[in-house]
């Protein structure tokens, strides 16, 4: 239902033309500059991120990759001293346009954090939380409809079999790996277009990392995924395209396989080979 609505919206007027033009691009930025107070964190970011694939953001600490990620669902703005210039379009829609409602931006563009942050309520309620936030106040779903949503989301993140018998357990009692999967699952019922992931595996052990990567692969296609990682091996095995950033600028953006084998720029090669960062 919501997707139909989104399509109907894109069919209107100028925005419709824009989206037709950039149909293959989920995220399009034009001369994006960002300052924290006097410190400039992003310089003229011009990126076209393709729809339905996994794009990884790599680069040394402080290069601006997380800042860039956080600009796309506008959570940077919560810090009062952030100043942003330039444009970000998601599926052809300017996210800074005057009529934009932040709640809608966050609904369409989900975010996963470094540390899993499930809410201290049951597993089931965690999955339904976002859905209930955006659902109509008057209409309460039937239990069976809710069950369907919960099962669907948990299956998609490969968590269903592990938790199906105790959906009423506190989510905070799960292992870190399961918590992180749940945090991804609870984004899905509101049908976001883009998933932003800020080092989603850095709090997990190697086994957990593998499991979460596997589920991220499973989500590609249906969702456009942008993932920040410090782990070169992860970027290499778990992304289609790869963006290398350095000192707030984009150095290289290309096919992951090509970038890792034959990087165009010397800085990229140095970083990938572990000479700094």
């Amino acid at each position, binding site marked *: 239902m919501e997707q139909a609505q989104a399509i109907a919206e894109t069919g209107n007027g100028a925005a419709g033309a824009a989206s037709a033009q950039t149909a293959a691009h989920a995220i399009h930025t034009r001369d994006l500059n960002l300052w924290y107070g006097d410190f400039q964190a992003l310089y003229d970011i011009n990126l076209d991120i393709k729809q339905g694939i996994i794009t990884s953001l790599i680069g040394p600490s402080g290069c601006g990759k997380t800042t860039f990620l956080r600009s796309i669902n506008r959570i940077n703005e*919560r810090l009062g001293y952030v100043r942003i210039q330039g444009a970000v379009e998601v599926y052809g829609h300017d996210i800074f346009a005057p009529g934009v409602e932040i709640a809608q931006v966050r609904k369409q563009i989900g975010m996963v*954090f470094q*540390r899993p942050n499930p809410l201290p309520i049951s597993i089931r309620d965690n999955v339904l939380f976002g859905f209930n936030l955006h659902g109509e106040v008057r209409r309460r779903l039937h239990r069976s409809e809710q069950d369907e949503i919960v099962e669907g989301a948990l299956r998609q993140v490969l968590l269903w079999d592990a938790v199906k018998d105790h959906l009423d357990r506190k989510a905070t009692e799960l292992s870190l790996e399961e918590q992180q999967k749940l945090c991804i699952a609870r984004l899905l019922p509101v049908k976001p277009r883009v998933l932003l992931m800020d080092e989603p595996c850095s709090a997990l052990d190697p086994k957990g990392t593998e499991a979460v990567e596997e589920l991220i692969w499973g989500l590609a296609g249906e969702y456009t995924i942008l993932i920040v990682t410090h782990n070169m091996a992860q970027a290499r095995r778990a992304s289609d395209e790869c963006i290398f950033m350095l000192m707030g600028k984009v150095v290289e953006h290309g096919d992951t396989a090509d970038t890792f084998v034959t990087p165009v720029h010397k800085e990229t090669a140095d970083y990938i080979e572990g000479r700094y960062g």
Partner: protein
Amino acid sequence: MFAATHLNVQNMRRQSLVQILFMLMTAILILPVLIILATLIYKGGPAISFEFLFSDPRDGMTAGGIFPALVGTVWLVAVALLVSVPLGVAAAIYLSEFAPQNWFTRIINLAIINLAGVPSIVHALFGVGAFVLFFGFGTSILAAALTLAIMTLPVVIVATRESLQAVPLAFREACWNMGATRWQTIHRVVLPNAVSGILTGVILEVSRTTGETAPIMFTGAAFFLPFLPESVFDQTMALSLHLFVVSTQVPGVPDEMPYGVALVLIGMVLAMNSVSIAFRMYLRGKKKW
């Protein structure tokens, strides 16, 4: 190789000395409480009976029971709570969740903490000026309870604010990033996790309100009333004032009577506190993070 050196021995001795000293200080703190309780039970215990609790005072308050005072105190505490809890909790939510964190908000917070330190007799005079005279409630339960509410408001606000701020930022972030509004975040996640702390504030308030005498003396509590209050516009007796009256203002009161009143007063506070603490522990047990 691992034997104690001279220095070790010295340090250990110093530690035991400090430990004993602090233990003694704690004992000194606990002792008065025990003595008070023991005295009250020993001297006031014989006065407690069904008749004492549930009958009116007789013979110029030298005999009979305390029923009107008991009922009056319940009225006062209930009305005061009804006013101060919603008001205090709402104010605290605004201050900690909505208000911009700037110098003005900080000044307001500081003012609230200072308000908690205002002597109760000053609150009493404010109550007379504001509720009894200006709003025209007269000396009534309403005026007295409002005065009590104003006096205990800071306790509720501070306790609520602190328990709201104890809810981890990660939960709020999780909500915001799913597109929750501030209010959705507050009533779905922050408040349920702050309830036990807010309850602590309310417990403190109940204890204070039950025992306060000065603020109700001029605003709504009477020395002696032969009937029970029927609405909030009536005057009423109250346990705390009754204690003051029977122990200092009326000649010929039997010895055990003031002790009995005091015992009932303390018993009431302890009973309410125990119930609230039990409830709070139950809520705490349910939350885990």
